[in-house]
């Protein structure tokens, strides 16, 4: 079977799984829906491996394979097929997406048990994986946009999964609206590309891009900026990042899959896929790198102060994606993809562990109420620790190598890119700091009430409330189920976490700088046309990056230990000393408030004004005004209908006279 056939299978299995679960949602008993969904993704993963094997059997310069089923659109000037593109980048993304999705599906089989919407969950989740795979396998802009939009919808459906929670539905709408803004940017970019090059399929566009636009011409820069709008909305970079923190309203496995490993990396994939266009427009690429660096610092600063466990991890995601965006913008494609892969491993693991912790806390997500869970939950704390070490780029773990690759490349590019290197290094320090803030606050210290209950063998039971607002809820459809599942008790949760923990530890060894280059060589055929393909990071810069990375990571961990274990209470004193700075950070740099004032309120006022004034006066006025005018005319004409015969006769006579007079005058 050829790689493209495997590609179609990769798409078919999750779609079939979603439809089967959706159609049988009343009849599938117990956890069957979960196993069906997991099996579908497992088969997709197997097909990805098949595609990989077949792809590698082709010679290195012939690894861009396309296949299409039928014509989608075929008119004058616009022609698009339902086609996929199977090349190393696509296969890499398929492997990461389907692999991590499979593990998260298995985790969810146990985690979401007892939820009334169990089957709906797995149908949506399978649909999401199908959309994401469609996005990465797309062979032309039309299919890319279709996959992009489906992913946005799946995200909305899963964020507002517990749809009777008002906070969840608001978060879903917020995510969807910002995603749509990105969609618009992407669609306009696609239109401009079609008008410029006359093609919509990726090989055709990239072949003709160089002839259509010159270097840094404003046309291609505009197109790349529009693509960036799409990428940043999907990947939650400034200024489109506000939805990701609110998206934590969804179930934790959803956060793990969509908002850590796969959907938010779609923007990174997009920029990497469009690299010929970005290399034609260095201005746009530089803007992208700058925004990535800024987002990195911003998100790390916020993660240092927020107290909701899932939101800390969400801001960590935003920050790490800033690294990836920075990487693919400065043409470090291999490094960016490598970091994407390792991040998927350790971030998914971290979310899974966080899910277990929240279940143990009976739904509470506030780390101010958590402490000392280490002895009560040994497996979870070990998993969280491994994830935090990888996130904090502790030497030897996967995150260390991937982050270092990016910073080494930045140093290699030199010039203004040293600023990016500095931002990345400072960010690494902050990353280690907040990662271990979580570890020390949640797992170290005196065991809290829930930890003591667990140590005695009882799973804590709390009131069913909305963790954000404290409103009481029931456990019926549209709300979380009554039971909570922790990793220590569910094998289906421990298995995937173990696999991910192993990958988080050893995953970095495939790309040890100077020793192994598996990822880079694998992805070379895709990026062979890049101008920077031959840029090799020199040993000096590599060493600098390795050392700086190690120093910043260890310093961050040490600082966290000092703040939270040696001198607990230091942070409280800092908060008291700098209340305004703390407020600024806790309010996420007031982005939400700014958007509310600048965008939301004016739009609402406009809508209200339109509905009360314009609708009532102008449109209503036109409707009733027409009626009034007709009625007035009617009243005027009614006077002539007196019912008196002689009046009518007089009118006839008058008319005849007037007519005669008219004809007399005209005939003169």
């Amino acid at each position, binding site marked *: 079977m050829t790689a493209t056939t495997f590609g179609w299978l990769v798409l078919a299995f999750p779609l079939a799984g979603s439809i089967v679960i959706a159609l049988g949602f009343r009849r599938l008993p117990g956890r069957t829906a979960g196993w069906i969904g997991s099996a579908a993704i497992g088969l997709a993963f197997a097909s990805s491996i098949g595609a990989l094997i077949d792809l590698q059997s082709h010679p290195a310069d012939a690894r861009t394979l396309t296949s299409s089923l039928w014509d989608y659109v075929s008119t004058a000037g616009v022609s698009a097929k339902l086609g996929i593109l199977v090349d190393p980048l696509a296969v890499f993304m398929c492997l990461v997406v389907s692999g991590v999705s499979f593990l998260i599906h298995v985790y969810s089989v146990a985690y979401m048990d007892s939820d009334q919407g169990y089957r709906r969950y797995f149908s949506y989740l399978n649909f999401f994986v199908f959309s994401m795979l469609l996005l990465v396998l797309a062979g032309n802009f039309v299919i890319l946009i279709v996959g992009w939009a489906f992913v946005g919808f799946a995200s909305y459906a899963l964020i507002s999964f517990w749809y009777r929670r008002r906070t969840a539905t608001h978060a879903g709408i917020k995510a969807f609206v910002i995603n749509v803004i990105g969609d618009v940017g992407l669609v306009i970019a696609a239109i401009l590309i079609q008008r410029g090059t006359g093609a919509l399929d990726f090989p055709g566009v990239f072949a003709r891009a160089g002839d259509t636009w010159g270097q840094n011409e404003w046309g291609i820069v505009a197109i790349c900026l529009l693509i960036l709008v799409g990428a940043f909305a999907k990947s939650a970079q400034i200024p489109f990042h506000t939805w990701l923190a609110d998206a934590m309203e969804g179930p934790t496995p959803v956060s793990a899959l969509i908002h850590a490993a796969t959907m938010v990396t779609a923007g990174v994939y997009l920029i990497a896929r469009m690299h010929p266009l970005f290399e034609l427009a260095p201005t746009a690429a530089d803007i992208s790198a700058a925004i990535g660096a800024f987002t990195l610092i911003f998100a790390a600063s916020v993660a240092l102060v927020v107290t909701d466990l899932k939101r800390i991890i969400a801001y960590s995601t935003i920050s790490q994606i800033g690294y990836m965006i920075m990487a693919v913008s400065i043409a470090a494609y291999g490094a960016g993809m490598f970091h994407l892969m390792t991040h998927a491993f350790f971030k998914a693991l971290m979310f899974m562990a966080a899910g277990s912790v929240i279940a143990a806390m009976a739904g509470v997500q506030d780390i101010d109420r958590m402490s000392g869970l280490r002895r009560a939950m040994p497996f979870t704390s070990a998993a969280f620790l491994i994830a935090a070490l990888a996130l904090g780029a502790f030497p030897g773990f996967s995150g260390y190598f991937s982050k270092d690759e990016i910073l080494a490349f930045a140093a290699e590019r030199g010039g203004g890119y040293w600023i990016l290197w500095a931002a990345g290094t400072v960010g690494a320090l902050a990353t280690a700091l907040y990662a271990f803030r979580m570890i020390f606050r949640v797992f170290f210290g005196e065991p809290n009430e829930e930890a003591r209950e667990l140590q005695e063998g009882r799973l804590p039971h709390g009131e069913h409330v909305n963790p954000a607002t404290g409103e009481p809820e029931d456990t019926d459809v549209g709300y979380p189920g009554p039971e909570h599942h922790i990793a220590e008790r569910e094998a289906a949760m421990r298995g995937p976490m173990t696999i991910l923990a192993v990958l988080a530890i050893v995953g970095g060894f495939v790309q040890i700088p100077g020793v192994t280059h598996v990822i880079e060589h694998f992805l070379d055929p895709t990026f062979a046309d890049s101008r920077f393909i031959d840029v090799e990071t020199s040993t000096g810069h590599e060493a600098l990056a390795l050392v700086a990375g190690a120093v910043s990571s260890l310093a961050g961990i040490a600082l966290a230990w000092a703040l939270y274990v040696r001198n607990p209470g230091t942070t409280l004193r800092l908060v008291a000393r700098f209340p305004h700075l703390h407020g600024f950070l806790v309010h996420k740099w007031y982005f939400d408030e700014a958007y509310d004032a600048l965008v939301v309120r004016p739009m609402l006022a406009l809508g209200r004004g339109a509905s009360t004034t314009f609708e009532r006066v102008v449109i209503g006025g036109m409707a009733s005004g027409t009626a009034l005018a007709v009625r007035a005319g009617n009243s005027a004409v009614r006077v002539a*209908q*007196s*019912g*008196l*015969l*002689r009046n009518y*006769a007089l009118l006839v*006579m008058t008319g005849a006279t007037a007519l005669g007079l008219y004809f007399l005058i005209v005939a003169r």
Partner: protein
Amino acid sequence: MDIAWYLVLSAFIFCIGGAGVLTRRSPLVILICLELMLNAGNLALVAFARMTGTGDGQVFALVVMIVAACEVVVGLGLIVAMYRSHLPMDVDDMSELHG
């Protein structure tokens, strides 16, 4: 006599009939004034027939006479029915079709 005389006479009779329709209140007399107007038209038609030398105008005048006869029959039937229903024989009082 020149044909013009007949035509002017016809115009005068027509206008007198029209004034009568506007002035009188009894439906019967209004019908009679309508007859005047019709006859004025007849005179004009016959005058034109003489002017052109064809018989078409005369045939037309004959048809007008027949139509007038039919109209009189129906109109007078209406008046008789009105009288028998004790309705006032005054055109100004019969204004139920006002708007």
